[in-house]
């Protein structure tokens, strides 16, 4: 039967040889992410990298070649990510590996990349170990790490009068690491602060009523929240009804990102100090153009995931351009110090530890017309929230 699809397929098949003659083979990027496990982040993220790849190709590609992104779903498991990375390198002949959401997937891919001596550019994984304790020369990371997010928030938290702090964080690496850095950095700035209690709900299974009551019983002045997604919605609702946030300061990681702020709706608590992305309010030319292009292409507004996906591909294009080659060693030299454009403004990969200097926005939550938003925000450049070079080198050497 002749269907629309077969007609299109035939046309495409006929078109390919001519196209192949006309221009050189594309540069292939093997992208892996948790599409089925974490769709609320990864589907806007996919739109983001598609947009970037289209824009780069429309303006002539990289080194005279088009970019082609081949994408795989790691199902949230590092073992699947490693096998698929092998498939991308050996079968699809990709030139660079990229992607990841979960930290353990990022670490597994980074280790695999080192083993195979190929580049891996991590987008979202936030684990500090990725560039420090377990860092290696083949791995670069785009987003601000848990250390940097904690440092950005500590700068604001230290100004609060609060002395008695409690923490609530999901019971896995990301939560543990964020709480650890927040405690260490805040205690260094404010020796008078004490942490009087902590709660560690299992990820996705928070018992919000009990958690809120247990925190309230400690009579804290301030709360550090690291929960996100459905857990956060649940925590905020119980906290609102039980009055946990009344007359207390709250510092909350990632809560200003549209993915996590929007579900709170008209129950968004006011005055929380958060990191995030005040999307429409950032009227820089880069961000305005990004949002307009995204709306035109997908008929939707971008999320934080979209920014990560977009910036990831932009950074890869910049790194390859700077290297002028696809040889792994040349690529490492090219990426080290490469500057690239993002919706948040220019950022670069540090030569020292391969950490990206992409920052994030720090501000306060507020409620306007029944919707949560960020106010009093400023852009925190990632480069300003990293430890000294000596400390970083010491951490990277401990990797052995």
């Amino acid at each position, binding site marked *: 039967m002749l269907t629309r699809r077969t007609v299109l397929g035939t046309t495409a098949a006929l078109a390919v040889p001519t196209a192949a003659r006309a221009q050189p083979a594309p540069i292939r990027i093997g992208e892996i992410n948790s599409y089925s496990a974490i769709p609320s982040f990864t589907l806007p993220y996919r739109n983001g990298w598609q947009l970037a790849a289209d824009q780069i190709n429309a303006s002539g590609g990289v080194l005279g070649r088009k970019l082609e992104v081949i994408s795989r779903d790691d199902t949230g498991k590092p073992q*699947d990510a490693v096998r698929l990375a092998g498939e991308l390198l*050996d079968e699809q002949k990709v030139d660079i590996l990229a992607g990841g959401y979960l930290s*353990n997937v990022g670490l597994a891919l980074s280790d695999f990349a080192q083993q195979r001596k190929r580049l891996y550019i991590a987008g979202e994984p936030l684990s500090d170990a990725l560039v420090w304790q377990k860092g290696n020369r083949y791995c670069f990371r785009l987003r601000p790490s848990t250390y940097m997010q904690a440092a950005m928030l500590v700068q604001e938290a230290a100004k609060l009068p609060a002395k008695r702090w409690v923490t609530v964080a999901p*019971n896995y690496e990301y939560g543990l690491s964020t709480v650890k850095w927040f405690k260490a950095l805040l205690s260094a700035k404010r020796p008078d602060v004490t942490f009087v209690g902590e*709660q*560690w709900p299992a990820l*996705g299974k928070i018992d919000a009523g*009990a958690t809120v009551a247990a925190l309230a019983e400690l009579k804290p002045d301030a709360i550090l929240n690291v929960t996100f997604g459905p857990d956060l919605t649940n925590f905020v*609702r119980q906290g609102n009804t*039980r009055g946990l946030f009344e007359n207390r300061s709250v510092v909350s990681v990632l809560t200003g990102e549209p993915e996590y702020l929007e579900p709170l709706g008209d129950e968004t608590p006011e005055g929380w100090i958060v990191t995030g992305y005040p999307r429409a309010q950032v009227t820089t030319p880069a961000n305005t153009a990004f949002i307009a292009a995204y709306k035109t292409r997908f008929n939707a507004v971008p999320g934080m995931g979209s920014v990560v996906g977009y910036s990831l591909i932009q950074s890869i294009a910049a790194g390859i351009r700077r290297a002028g080659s696809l040889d792994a060693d040349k690529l490492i030299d090219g990426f080290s110090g490469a500057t690239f454009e993002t919706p948040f403004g220019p950022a670069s990969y540090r030569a020292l530890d391969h950490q990206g200097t992409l920052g994030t926005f720090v501000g306060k939550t507020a409620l306007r017309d029944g919707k949560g938003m960020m106010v009093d925000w400023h852009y925190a450049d990632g480069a300003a929230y990293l430890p000294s070079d000596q400390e970083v080198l010491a951490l990277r050497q401990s990797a052995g």
Partner: protein
Amino acid sequence: MSFLAIQFLTGLSGAVSLFLMSAGLTIIFGVTRVVNFAHGSLYMLGAYIGWSILTRLPHDPIWFAGGVIAAALATGCIGAAIEMTLLRRLYRAPELFQLLATFGVMLAIQDLTLLVWGPNDLPLPRAPWLRGSVTILGEHFPAYDLLLIAIGPAVLTALLLLLNRTRFGMLIRACTENRDLAAALGINHRILSTSVFALGAGLAGLGGALVLPDSSANTQMDLAVIVEAFVVVVVGGMGSVTGAFLASLMFGELQAFGIVLIPGATLVLVFIIMAVVLSIRPRGLLGDAPVPSAISAAGKPVRPVSSRIQLVGWSLVVLAATAPIWLPAYWLSVLTEILIAVLLAGSLHLMMGPGGMISFGHAAWFGLGAYSSALTVRMLSAPMPLALLAAPVAAGLVAIAFGWFVVRLSGVYLAMLTLAFAQIVWAAAAQWSWLTGGDDGILGVWPSGSVPFFYWVLSLSVAATWLLQRITRSPFGLALTAARDSEARALSIGLRADRLRMAAFAMSGAAAGLAGGLFAFSTGSVFPTYVAVGKSVDVLLMVLLGGINTVIGPIAGAVAYTGFYDLLLQTTSMWRLALGLTIITLVLAFPDGLAGGWRRSRS
């Protein structure tokens, strides 16, 4: 004092959604013997359907109640449809085989939900009356939680009246006690099974819709609740609604107070409690009904492998031995993974087939082996052969210690105790970061060359799998089968069932540990995901898919499942829908497993 009271009430309200889930699960199990893996999906559908209805209704309490009931009814209809189109055809299949079908349903529903409702969390905006609180002993307590506290006992009362005071309930009890006798007395088991499944699904949907004012409808909620619901059912005693109620109250309270005393215990609390309860009361709190035989393979010895199939098998091994010459690198890594899966499935089969012990936690041994190997390499800088030796030794030794608790149980209770142990191992792997690296795992466990390593995997997997099937046919294996089929008669001819089972359990654990050790080197790293529930389910699916009555079955199941899964992941983003529908199709086409179906088609 007021804090204790508030926390007590919070525990009560937290118990309600657990109870609604587990009540449905336990009734369904009682009548149909189906271990319904899709029950979490029905809970999730209840939430999504509830969201779609409630966001279109006025925000009054009456409309809210109507919307929630409508969502429960709709979920009940979906449950009835699943029973009529799928499960009904499988009641004659070996028990637990339906688990495979419901797992397929769960996978398909995950992708369908994403298609219909999209990836974003869908929070239900709370009407003012849902946000209110009452002041109890000077503390704010959510008014909605008080409502939930009332709903739990109300549903329990309604269910008990239904079961004890109506003809429908009498039929349910009759079928729960003895299905065949009830059928012989003219009870229409078909209609009863459908309506019971619909009732259970409706209760899950009710639970899902009622959670909306506290949280949101989201794509992760199915897996978040299903395991805990099973735990409640088993701790309460399978088939007992009152038991499920008591167990969910117990878990609600222990959770509420447990997180105050030991905040870090959230990952393992329920599993430690289950392990303790089952060690004291092997049939749960109120489970006094006889434990249904786990697998109806009982009475059939595992079939020996015909010489023709042996010839085919060894030819395939020889062919595999030449693979590094003609197979591209990536496909060699897939073949490596398949070989490891074959060993893992074979190790579970020794327990499940001749041993008659199902395991929902086989990943424990796999993970212990993987961590032992990785730690031997990282801490002692040992060479790979030594690390590969450490894996089965460590897993086997732990299996001996744990087997002492396990072999005294049977059926699903035994299976759930293995799950509890696996979850404790998983939590240790995730939280003892000084030893295991926590979620970040242990990296850099690579073999020195991929082709030599392939031969290691090939030789060890084939040798161990061959040994496992030799054991099955050995006097020991036959004695084990005898103890499975009739413990009393086995005892009378001098066979100690518990010792035989312990030995089988330890061998199975050691073989799974070896598979784990090989896997650590093949992926170069070890993570807590190797011990996660999903891994245990994968192994179980391989054995069930292949068929339990032959030693070839698990091998075929491992090859088919692993190969197909790997293939789907690299070809389609809708792999869950594709895998789910494939499993459902296979289950309907081969209700006695792939190996059984092949044999049938030849005869």
